[in-house]
């Protein structure tokens, strides 16, 4: 009896020691392990499916009043793209800038800022939630993406919309992790693309969109985190899959380990 007890005690103790050792020493190697990462990433699909099942298609993000506007709206990511192409466009006040809409559409388009300004615009005061944890409230004005895509005529096999941006991003020490540089891009599915609050904002807090916030045009997709709100938009491409772009995960931060579904 004592022998059994002792061996069981030893088993328990070594189990406990093994478990805590695994946790304290092995966390970092587990965090780098591809299979572990793959298993952990499966929660994203469950979260996405659950939120979409509970979320009415047109359910709106909270909208605020002018009184709620953040005194300072923190800018993050690229503050000023440094490519010659962008700097040229900026110098000319974006007179020569065109938003290209192509891919799986019947009528590819190239829209100027004036063209976009003529479209019916939506004004929304919403909360911007950075993946790092902070939030800021801003007022955005711009045309809804849905009607623009309808005008372009999405082909039946289009499933996602990819946003190509003008900026190269890299070295964001606050986030840690993969710090490799690359061209910014993002993607959303058609549920979000046709959501009424998904707009192409050319105005922020009553003024033309400032450079640090993505001039001349940025995406607002209000039911997701800040990194989905692509700045410096150049081209919107309708696709059936985003696997052929860059790292294949559907966005700059997605290629660096973040969730494609950034609703949480």
């Amino acid at each position: 009896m004592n022998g059994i007890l002792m061996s069981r005690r030893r088993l328990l103790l070594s189990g406990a020691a093994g478990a805590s050792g695994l946790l304290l020493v092995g966390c970092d190697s587990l965090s780098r392990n591809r299979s572990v990462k793959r298993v952990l990433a499966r929660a994203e699909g469950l979260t996405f499916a659950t939120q979409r099942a509970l979320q009415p298609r047109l359910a709106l993000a909270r909208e605020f009043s002018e009184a709620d506007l953040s005194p300072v709206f923190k800018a993050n990511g690229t503050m000023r793209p440094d490519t010659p192409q962008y700097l040229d466009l900026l110098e000319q006040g974006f007179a020569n800038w065109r938003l290209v809409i192509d891919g799986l559409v019947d009528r590819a388009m190239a829209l100027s800022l004036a063209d976009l300004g003529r479209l019916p615009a939506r004004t929304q005061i919403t909360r911007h939630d950075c993946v790092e944890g902070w939030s800021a409230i801003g007022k955005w004005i711009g045309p809804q993406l849905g009607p623009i895509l309808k005008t372009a005529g999405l082909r039946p096999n289009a499933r996602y919309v990819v946003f190509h941006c003008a900026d190269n991003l890299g070295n964001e020490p606050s986030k840690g992790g993969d710090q490799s540089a690359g061209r910014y891009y993002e993607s959303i599915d058609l549920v979000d693309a046709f959501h009424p609050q998904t707009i192409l904002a050319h105005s922020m807090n009553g003024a033309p969109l400032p450079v640090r916030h993505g001039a001349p045009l940025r995406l607002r997709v209000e039911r997701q985190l800040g990194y989905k709100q692509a700045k410096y938009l150049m081209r919107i491409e309708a696709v059936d899959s985003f696997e052929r772009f860059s790292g294949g995960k559907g966005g700059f931060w997605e290629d660096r380990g973040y969730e494609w579904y950034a609703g949480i």
Partner: protein
Amino acid sequence: MTANTHGSPAPPERIRRHSVVTRLTHWLNVLAVVVLVMSGLQIFNAHPRLYWGQAGANADMPFIEITSVVSGADGRRGVVRFGRHAVDTTGFLGLSGSLDDPMRRGFPAWATLPGYQDLATGRRWHLFFAWVLVLNGALYVLYNAASGHLRRDLWPTTRELAPTHVWSEVKAHIRLRWPTGEADKSYNVLQKLTYLSVIAVALPLILLTGLTMSPGFNAIAPWLLDVLGGRQSARTLHFIAAAFIVGFIIVHVGLVLLAGPWNLMRSMVTGRYTVRPDRRSPAQSPYAPSAS
């Protein structure tokens, strides 16, 4: 092994204390909570400031901030700021790691998952084990509500809630006098209230405040923003609820170590618990007499 005071050997009384569901969910919960706390601190480190209200970022006044400052002769120091008050926390919060190469980070490497700074991986751990906590917690609550365990063993009776009784339990705990005989076969009122505060208050609060930080969930249940005072308030409450749970774990593990770790650990692994032999008649419980 044990003998009563009259010298005649009496076999220790063994009871089945924990059901297999309770034991399984307990240990899965241990794993989930450890991962959630450590990965939560990793996420917190990406922006080690807490605010009150709907929004809040660097230009806004934080409620609590962990940072580091250069202070004259001392060089760089880690500090925690509560409003206008600052506390030096060098070596733990704000600035930690080796003396030669200190790191400017909110919580130190040993407290975060992963240890190195990596918000993306911290989020992967956190959002996976959040599901483990929720599903495991749902199994625990559903099973134990159906089996009657929650009502029978965890819900305090009116008599137990009488201030004099609660006070006698507090005194017994402070003197480290553990229940014996019949009294040792059930939870005392302090245990009941503590377990219920975790099961019915802290864990639901941490789930709801977590969900209130989700912009997708805000569109599903916008009323949570009103109930909890906004997304940044929810983030602060999430942190406070986590601190409460960490506090509970420290007290819980401490009391297990003081009250007989072998017997208590075995009961949570195999389910069997050896009742402490009675020193006096059960009628005079709780617990042992005071010296008078």
